Structure formats: C-alpha cells, structure tokens
C-alpha cells in the first residue's frame, strides 16, 4: 500500500462558520491549513452563499448572513488556506489520517492536527405523513430560500421549536407565501423568569420580538404548546394538523387543528453529525440539555483523542456565533501546538475567546431551557408511520423486533433493516433509540448508537479503487 500523502500541519473538515473560523485563525498564525468541504462552495449551512453564477445578492433581507460569511470566506482564501472542495471525508484512520474522496479518486492525508467541524442536521421526527413531498425541514427551507431565493410552497405551516421558526416564517412572508400558522412546541410560559439573563443579549431578544410582531401583523397565528400531528395528502401535502402537547412535547390526545396548506416545514432542533468524531475514536457523552450525544472536549475544544478538535454544531448544536468562537479557539490551540503562539500572547488570546464563549453560553443556556427538547415528540409516530425512510420500515416493525428481544439499535437494525439505507441511519437513529427506550422502559442511552464504520458518507466504489496524491 502506498504511503499517505505528505502531511499538512492542520486539516479542517467542514467549511461552515466553525471550520472557516478555525482555518482563518490557524492560518493567521502561520499554520499550514487544508480545509475540506463536501460542497462546491464554502459556507456550510449558516453561511450558505448564493450561487456564483447569480450576479447579485438580491435583496438585503436574506443576504445578511451570506455577506458576513462571504467576508470570512474571502479572508480564508486570502490567507492561503489550501482548499479541497466537492470532496467527502469518508473515514478517519489511526486517529488523524483522513480519507477523502471526490467522484473519481480517494486520497489519505495525515494531519498533525485535525479540526472537525462537520455541523449538524435537522432532527428528524417521524409523524404520520412526514415522507410526503411538501414536508421539509427548517434547514432545508432555509437552504432553498437563502441559497436560491425559492419558496418551498405557497401555503405553509411551520412547526417546531426555537427562534429559527420565526426566521423561517419571516423569510416566507417576505417571499410572498401565506403562512398558515407557526407552531411552537414549547409552552413559553413565564418568559419574565428569563428576563434578567437575557439582558446581556438584548439584540437577540429585540430581533425575536420584531419577528413576532411581523407575523402577528400578517395575521399568522402563533401557537405555543403545539406540535405537528400529521401531514395529509397522497401524492403530496394537501393539508396538515397540529395538536396541543404536554411539557414533554408529547401530543395530547384529542381534537386536532387542521390547516389547508401545501407545505409543512418542521424544525425541532438539530442533531450533531458525529460520524467523524466517532470514527476518530473520540469519547462522547449524553447531554440531555442538548437532546443527544456530543463529543467530550477540553476548554480548548480538543477531544479525548490528542490532536483532534471538534468545533461548532458538530459538537452540540449551539448556533453560528458559538461556532465561530469555538472554531477560533481551536485555531488558537493548534497555533499554540505548532509554537506559533505562545506565552502571554497565547494566554491572552485564549482568555478572550473563552470570555466570549462564556458570554454566549449564558444565552445558550436560556435557549436550551426555554426550548428544552421534549422526547414526547417521538410518540407522534403511529404504528404504520415510516420510521426508516430509506428502507421503508414502519414503527410497528421496529417495535416487533424490540418485543422479540432486540434492545440495541444495532439489533433492531439487523432484524428490520432500519438504518441500513443510504442515509446510514441519520434519519432514523435518534427516533429508533427513543422508540426502544419507550418500549423497554430503559434510558435512551442504553439503546446505543449504530456502530460507527467507514464510509461516513456514501462514496463511489470507483473512487475507492483509485488512490490519488
């Protein structure tokens, strides 16, 4: 076997805010950085850029994050960071050797420092009708509207939790769509209790308040303590219903409120992409406040594997501001490891970054409490609701396996095919773990995770057969 390509100092996986910030900071201090991203353009999800072929950014309303991101992207390019775009990191071997593939070839790169910034994806919540064309995630709606200026539909129901719902509704209204309702799962009670903790973050509060005003002025009902109950239609969405929920976000049996819509947008938080941090051998722990597993990290963003850092939403979805700071922190740490930053200068830079992270953490804690994820959502699935979208396995089939003794996600997978599809268990994993937990009465952590294996994403076999350098 040929030896891996000559190493770079630092490989950054993921070109969203966290990865860009890490690459920028490390490169600013003279570290040789290689930044790899699956997409043809940098920006990830938060900083998704308009296509290069579009001559202008269009109206300013949807452009702010794009412009902010564009500046960071320009800086990263100007610092001479080596870029590898349209390339998928499909494996991590021997802790810091990264396997990356394009359509035609694969190569291995051994890094002395590896910064993983793989981001997160919308939490998939199975409910009756969730597979119909016209049901899409909040992230998917954002990509469409911000990235291509296309509306997902004309009559839209927005359901989920958190400030993102208001942003989505805002963009929809701006684009001329009719928003039938915005359904927030959280009961949003006693907001005054959070007032003092939100004082340092007034800009966020003001923005949220403005969005609320806007949807109210547009006559859009804002329902709290409600969850999506079902999407209706046979070839595509023709309607949807919501139901009141308890504090666990479990639907309360009873009358459902129907809406005449052609589109349903669901946004119930985000799941960190942990495939690479698991393949790298990093330890993870269950973080109930974040609703899932996250990698264990030091204050400098280093994982339990020396030289492997994890930053941004890939280490627990916390938003773009946190992602930027965490990326920056890891960049500083890597610069320190290479001796490019030392002593008091290092300590000061790290201390400032830590201060900003602590400040943001205060805001995050309020958000995580206010919109604390309710696992009751996973009771939305009915017996014949599709649990595994790829392999078309129903909740009932999974439950049958559990009753026969399959109490780990790998065991249910083996017997029912849940998790065996092209999405590699991303869409069904969390729901399956909760289904098992509910059926067995044991903690959701006992249900385990699908065994991490390469490739982290589907890779062309022809590319695996062709090693490049």
């Amino acid at each position, binding site marked *: 076997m040929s030896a891996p390509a000559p190493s770079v100092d630092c490989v950054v996986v993921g070109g969203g805010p966290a990865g860009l910030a890490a690459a920028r900071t490390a490169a600013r201090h003279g570290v040789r950085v290689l930044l790899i991203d699956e997409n043809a353009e940098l920006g990830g999800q938060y900083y998704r850029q308009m296509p290069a072929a579009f001559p202008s950014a269009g109206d300013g309303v949807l452009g702010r994050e794009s412009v902010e991101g564009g500046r960071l992207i320009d800086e990263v390019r100007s610092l001479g960071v080596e870029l590898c775009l349209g390339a998928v990191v499909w494996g991590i071997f021997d802790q810091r050797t990264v396997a990356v593939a394009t359509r035609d070839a694969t190569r291995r790169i051994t890094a002395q420092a590896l910064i993983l910034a793989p981001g997160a994806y919308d939490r998939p919540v199975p409910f009756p009708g969730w597979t119909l064309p016209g049901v899409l995630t909040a992230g998917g709606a954002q990509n469409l509207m911000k990235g291509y200026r296309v509306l997902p539909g004309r009559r839209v129901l927005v359901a989920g939790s958190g400030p993102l719902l208001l942003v989505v509704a805002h963009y929809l209204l701006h684009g001329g769509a009719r928003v039938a309702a915005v359904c927030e799962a959280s009961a949003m009670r006693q907001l005054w209790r959070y007032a003092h903790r939100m004082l340092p973050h007034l800009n966020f509060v003001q923005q949220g308040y403005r969005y609320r005003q806007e949807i109210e002025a547009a006559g859009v009902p804002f329902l709290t303590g409600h969850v999506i109950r079902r999407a209706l239609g046979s070839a595509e969405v023709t309607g949807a219903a919501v139901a009141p929920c308890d504090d666990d976000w479990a639907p309360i049996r009873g009358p459902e409120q129907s809406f005449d819509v052609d589109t349903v947008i669901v946004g119930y938080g985000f799941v960190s992409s942990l495939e690479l941090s698991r393949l790298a051998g990093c330890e993870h722990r269950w973080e109930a406040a974040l609703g899932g597993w996250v990698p264990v990290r030091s204050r400098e963003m280093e994982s339990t594997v020396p030289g492997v850092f994890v930053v941004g939403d890939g280490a627990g979805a916390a938003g773009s501001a946190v992602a930027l700071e965490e990326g920056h922190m890891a960049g500083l740490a890597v610069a320190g490891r290479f001796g490019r930053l030392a002593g008091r200068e290092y300590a000061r830079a790290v201390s400032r970054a830590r201060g900003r992270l602590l400040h943001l953490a205060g805001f995050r804690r309020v958000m995580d409490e206010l919109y604390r994820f309710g696992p009751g959502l996973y009771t939305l699935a009915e017996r014949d609701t599709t649990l595994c979208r790829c392999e078309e396995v129903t909740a009932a089939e999974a439950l049958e396996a559990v009753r026969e003794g399959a109490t780990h996600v790998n065991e249910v997978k083996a017997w029912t095919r849940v998790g065996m599809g092209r999405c590699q268990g991303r869409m069904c994993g969390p729901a399956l773990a909760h289904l098992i937990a509910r059926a067995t009465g044991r903690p959701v952590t006992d249900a385990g995770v699908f065994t991490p294996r390469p490739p982290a994403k*589907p890779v062309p*076999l022809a590319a*695996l057969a062709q090693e490049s350098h």
Partner: protein
Amino acid sequence: MRLAASDVVVIGGGAIGTAVAYYLAVEGKSVTVVERRGVGQEASGANVGLVTLFSGHSLDEPDPGPLYELTRASVEAYTTLGEEVGVDIEYEQCGGVVFAETEDKLATLKRAAEGYRRHGVPVDVLDPRGVLDCEPAFYSERILGGVFCPLNGQVNPLLLCRAFATGARRRGVRFLLGTTVQNIYHGNGRVRAVKTSEGDIPCEVVVNAAGAWAADIGDMTGLRLPVVPARGQIMLTEPVPRFIRRVVSGAEPSARQTRRGNVIIGSTIENAGFDKNVTTGTIAHFARGVLPSFPRLAGLDVIRTWAGLRPATPDHKPIIQSLDEPAGLCLAVGHSRRGICYAAGTGRLVADLVTGRPPYLPRDAFNLARFAPMSPAGGEQAPPPPGPDHIRARST
C-alpha cells in the same frame, strides 16, 4: 443469586447457539441461552451469507463426508425454516459456480465434482465459456474452467439468527442477553451449573457455542480449545436492481447480491486478534480487486463496511462433540468460515448428542482429539491466520 434451572444452558447467541437452542427446544428440552451482547451480533451477523454445498471447502473433502452432511442438513432446514417460524430468512438456491484459474485447482475441482456426483449431488463441470455464461455479471480472462452446483445459494444471516431465536423463544427458550458467563461449575465428573452476571443457572448440559470466544469458555473447565479469532472485513454497496444472480466462489474478493439489492463484497481472513476495525488498505484492496471481476460495480456507491471475528481452528473444521469428562459438556465451536453453512446441521447434531439419539453423523466426526493435545508450553496450537497486511486468497 440462583436463577431457575434449565436442562441445557447454551453459551453464545449467534447462529450456532440459537440453532442449537431451537433444535433442543423442538426435542422438548428446557433451554437458556446466555449471550453477552445480543443475538447474532458477532460473526453470525458479519459474514457474506453464502450457503454452498459445493465450493472451495469441498476440495478438502472430495468424497462428500461429514462436512458435506453438515451443510446438507442446513440446506434442508433453511428451505423450510422461514415458513416454520414465520421469519423470512431470504434463503435462495440461486445456484453457484466455483471456478479455477490454475491447472492444479481445476484438477482438484474436477476430482471433487466427480466425488460429489457419485454421491448424488448435482454438479456440472463447465468450460471457461460455461462459467462466464453462468453468471454474466462476472468476468475473468484467466478462467480455465469451473463447477456449477444448482443447490448453492445464499441467505440473510441476520434474519437466520432471528428465525432461530424467534423459533426458540416460542418454544420456551429463555434468552439472557447482555449477560456474561463467568464460570462453569462442575464436580463429580459432570457439569452442575453456569455462573452468569445475572446469577447461577443449574443445569444438566452446557453447550459451548461462544464463537471466537470459545477458548475462554473452554478454560472454565480446564479445556484448551484451539479456536482463535480470524477477522473478516466486508464492504457493501447501495441497493440496485438484481444483476448478480449466482453465488460465485473463488473470486478474490467475491461479490454477491442480497434480496434488497445491496452487493456484499469481501471478505478478508486475517489475524488481528479481537480487533474489529475496518482498514483503509482493505477497502482499497476490495474496490480495486472487485472491479475487474464485476465491472458493473463501478457505478455504485459503497455505503457500509464492517468486520467480524470468525472462530478459526487449525484445520478450519468445527469441533462438535459431547464430552464424557465432565459429562454434560458439549462443544459446538470453531466453525471457521462456514458457520452459516453449518448452523442448522450443528443444531441438529447437538440435539442428537444431548438427547442420546443416534447422531446423524459419526460421534467422532468433529472431535477435539483430532488435534494434538495443547499444553501451555508447545504442543499444537491453532496456527494464527496470516497477519493483517496479508490478505489470503482462499475463499469458500
């Protein structure tokens, strides 16, 4: 803590353990299966799923003997098991071809084919064109000939384990999953009970079906078992419409297509201890190695890889035996690369041995004594398979 007694405790919940439990339960025995993880989560769930009556292994037994009988008993069982238990095991006798690329191998193949035909097994000797026509998705310039057996086929090994486990459960078998065996109590010349992490189970019979961990269980009664883990890595593509119809034996790596449409590519056989990692070298080796033989795979994506630990013995044949000392101790270990081929056959044989029925195979067909006694210093040990960097060409 003392748990309810069982006639039999089966150690290991893979294909062998669940098959043994199933057939013992059919005979009316009360059985407890103790498995430290879940059913079929080790080698049983990590193999290619071939069920071949005639293949490379037949070259070791050119006159069909006990190995053939073991496979034949399994083939017979798999044909009806799905319906019996209500679990579709996706078994199909799609037919299989074993080919040769050297004159030596071709000669051995022909000799074995002759022996099998005399025994009444349908086998056809094919010329190179015949081999390629047999499976149009397969290609090789170097083929000198081959043998086709219409009874060769494939199964879903994960569902096979589910079928045996479900069938066993319905017949009253108790499954202790997530439970480790800590000791086997024996005295006065016989087994008495099994100590587990959940409590002690008094029993008359203990069956060691612990796969790659059989030696650890053997140690509990002072038995040195020549079973070592032999890692096998496998690669899997996305599902596509069926285009590989037969089972092809002899290609390295081989490819076979499942009911769903995924193509399974593999496998390796390596000495990697108990490491179940998949290596980048193997992934590259598989991709490069399979494309010339199965060119249509070039357009497919790989979506998964995995590795299992096969329980290997020095001669790659299993050890299936009811011991006299201590009485009640049964071995069903060392199935090497053919656990799925031998599972039902093993279950039936152990059921015979335990119930005292005349076994359908000679009692000493797979006995431990065929290996020279093992001692701490020297003596025949199971030779470890070649090191991790050397991937052996032999396939089943």
